[in-house]
């Protein structure tokens, strides 16, 4: 089973909804593109959700520290520690993935977030996997949502 355009649109809409609602400021969410070879680049913080059930794979949100700093401020946080950055990047991944169950249903089972930090982290995607990258531009910052499902 491979991803359909309609399924990818679920994640585009979920990403758009997150920024409008949680950060009270819309992001520009681009069209998904396929990465056939290699793995999409990781930024400083990455929140990874493992998907099980009817679909298997991962969904991850990867962002820079400056973007997460501004996002934390929009959420009312003043604590800009590594722990809060990690908490936030995991929570964004969790919320976008969880919202996808509106379309995918209950059998789209999501894990608690796993967080990678450091742009040199090993990619969470399997070597032979096909990943779709959804580019996100918010204020002056760029981030990515990566969807890799069988």
């Amino acid at each position, binding site marked *: 089973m491979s991803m359909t355009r309609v399924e990818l649109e679920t994640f585009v809409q979920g990403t758009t*909804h*997150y920024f409008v*609602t*949680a950060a*009270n400021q819309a992001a520009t969410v681009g069209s998904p593109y396929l990465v056939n070879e290699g793995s999409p680049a990781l930024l400083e913080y990455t929140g990874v959700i493992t998907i099980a059930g009817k679909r298997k794979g991962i969904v991850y949100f990867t962002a820079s520290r400056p973007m997460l700093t501004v996002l*934390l401020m929009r*959420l*009312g*946080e003043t604590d800009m520690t590594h*722990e*809060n950055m990690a*908490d*936030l990047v*995991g*929570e964004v991944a*969790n*919320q*976008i*993935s*969880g*919202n*996808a*169950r*509106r379309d*995918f*249903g*209950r059998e*789209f089972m*999501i*894990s*608690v977030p796993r967080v990678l930090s450091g742009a040199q982290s090993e990619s969470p995607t399997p070597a032979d996997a096909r990943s779709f990258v959804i580019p996100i531009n918010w204020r002056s910052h760029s981030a990515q949502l990566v969807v890799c499902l069988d």
Partner: protein
Amino acid sequence: MTALKLMIVDDSNIMRRKIERSHQCARLQFIGAAGNGHQAVELFRRTAPDVVTMDITMPEMDGIECVKALVALNPDVLILIISALADKATAIEAMKQGANGFLCKPFTDRQLTEALDELLRGATQ
């Protein structure tokens, strides 16, 4: 009017603080927070809150299991599920286990306040 005691359960520190900071329900007094279901049951036994906000996807004991455990301890507790899981089946399951309301993440401050107000209105009817 006596304040009702509020306990917040979520594995994210940021979400716990956001819920504590953002709601505008004057009737609620925050008394503590827990990061998973086991911690929540322990805190519930010690503090006997009247109102609980409950995440679902958490390590160790998830929110649905925790709702069951809390309702067994006090069937009158008011529980608002606050979760990213947006499918109807999960909301229905949570209600079956004893939750009283459901708010989907992400949410605005206003949506949170309205959901808590609705929860409290339901309790007084």
